[in-house]
């Protein structure tokens, strides 16, 4: 009886809460980015934001490695180091996002921006790889395990921080609904309706980087949720109104990641798959289905 209790309270429930929060946070990040860049394929993982967060986290892991502390210890070190982890991941994400915004000022073409985002992601990843190449085997192992994605290792103070930042970010995003709606018509129309475009860009940058950075720091770079869920939600709700989309995306994202987690646990077996494999297996077909179903991908956001 006590073992069950322990498993429920200390493993399963925190894991479920993490999946709920991470799913919502990544989905809303993706939604915000798709609206800001007016690009249906924008999302934290596709445009290199997750890679930026991974760079930030990797940097911290390597620095910690110099002081003989590995990632799992770092994650368990308590509230101070958790904030440090969030901070470095968010700064890494913000670094890529800023570059992307800079490029977006000169490039109006969605496809070009997407390619630049992909390349920035690859570039960021290669920097991380350089570090990996020169790092200790134990650190490397910890880092690679982290890139598989893991929503099971978040508990105690980390969960508190994840919950705090995700909730704050989601609420903040909801308060931007009206302005995000104005952005559906493009920056000129948004400005003509009283929205300050540079300020809005900055707010979305901060919010997306905090949401993605926090989730990535604790759970690793989880792919496909950020791109698939907004499309799935729009298709289900039949609207682009952010006032409905943001809560609906949060819900869909949570459900999807919980579902992926159940899939990853493979009910009835002892095996557990990394969460990233589950999201890819479920997410990739969804994205393919979306791309095939949309007659004109450029207009679908």
């Amino acid at each position: 009886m006590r073992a069950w209790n322990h498993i429920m309270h200390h493993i399963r429930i925190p894991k479920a809460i993490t999946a709920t929060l991470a799913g919502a946070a990544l989905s809303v990040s993706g939604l915000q980015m798709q609206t800001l860049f007016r690009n249906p394929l924008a999302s934290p993982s596709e445009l290199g934001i997750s890679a930026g967060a991974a760079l930030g986290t990797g940097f911290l892991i390597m620095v910690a490695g110099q002081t003989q502390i590995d990632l799992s210890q770092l994650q368990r070190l308590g509230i101070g180091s958790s904030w440090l982890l969030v901070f470095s991941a968010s700064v890494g994400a913000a670094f890529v996002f800023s570059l992307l915004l800079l490029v977006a000022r000169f490039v109006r073409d969605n496809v070009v921006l997407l390619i630049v985002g992909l390349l920035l992601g690859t570039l960021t990843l290669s920097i991380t790889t350089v570090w990996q190449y020169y790092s200790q085997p134990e650190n490397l192992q910890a880092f690679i395990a982290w890139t598989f994605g893991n929503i099971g290792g978040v508990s105690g103070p980390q969960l508190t921080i994840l919950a705090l930042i995700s909730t704050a970010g989601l609420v903040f995003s909801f308060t931007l609904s009206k302005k995000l709606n104005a952005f559906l018509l493009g920056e000129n129309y948004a400005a003509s309706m009283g929205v300050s475009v540079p300020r809005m860009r900055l707010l979305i940058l901060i919010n997306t980087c905090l949401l993605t950075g926090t989730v990535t720091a604790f759970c690793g770079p989880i792919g496909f949720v950020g791109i698939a869920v907004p499309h799935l939600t729009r298709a289900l709700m039949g609207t682009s109104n952010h006032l409905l989309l943001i809560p609906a995306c949060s819900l869909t994202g949570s459900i999807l990641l919980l579902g992926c987690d159940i899939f990853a646990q493979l009910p009835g077996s002892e095996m557990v798959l990394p969460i990233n494999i589950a999201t890819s297996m479920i997410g990739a077909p969804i994205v393919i289905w979306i791309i095939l179903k949309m007659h004109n991908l450029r207009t679908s956001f």
Partner: protein
Amino acid sequence: MIIKTKDLAIGYRRGKQSRIVGSNINTQLKVGKFTALLGSNGAGKSTLIRTLAGLNLPLGGEIYIGDKNLTQWNRRELAHQIAVVLQDPIRSNNLSVFEFAALGRIPHSNWLGTLKENDNLIVTECLQKVGIETLRERKITELSDGEWQKVMLARALAQETPVILLDEPTAHLDLLSKIELVELLRTMAHHSQKTVLMATHDLELALQAADHVWLLDGMGNFYSGIPEDLVLNGLISKQYAREPKRGFDETTGMIRIPPVQKGKPISISGEGIAFFWTCKSLVRSGYQIGGGTLEVRVLSRDQNNEWEVQAADTSYRVYSLEELLNRLESLV
């Protein structure tokens, strides 16, 4: 709300370089007037509209909205003064007509942007004004070009601003939709005391319907005045007629394509619409009206069309202009 410009220069800035497309613009938009902005492609119509709306920075000079300089207005206040219909493509396709038009309420709604009953009423009213209230639940991707322009206008109207600036709203529209839209804009200006500026390529329409015409000549010069003055000053011809009898025709106010010259003289008699169109078809086919040995008599009455061609010794009856032209072709 009057918009005034003083020594305004417009253009693009790219890095440190700037390219001026229009300068020394000293003019004003008057309340309750419908103004048409003419100019060829690349003359700066869109730039001027965006600059007046505060979306582009002027390269020089000043713009006054009311009695305040444009730079002193903040975005939110300005959104209550000026609404725009731009050429920017709208990429979102999940919105219904009503939802799209309701976006115009953004400057008026609370921080969350929820629509109150009053907002719903205003949006519905705007959809009615442009005549598309039956389409309110339709997705915006399922509209014809004409319907889409009306939805864009409805959104701008829902913003409830005294000034509306439109960038080529009549492009891609069929003739009747164009006329409908222009009439609507003029009515809004005259009856709702709105200040309306519309950039357009439709010269004949603009000259007929606009109270004022602004003209960007593509060489950096700007002219404004009532349409007829601009015609009499030769400014419209200078812009729209490439050589005599090609392009804008001052005597008719219409666009003219020079006929092929054959120059066979034909005399013609008759009256009414049938007479008018017979002359037109003969001129178009290259005949000279008046003189010659061939004579065409228009006998048409009440859409029963009939012509008689009198040649030297015989006469022929024909029942369509095509037949008439074929007959003349064989006789000449």
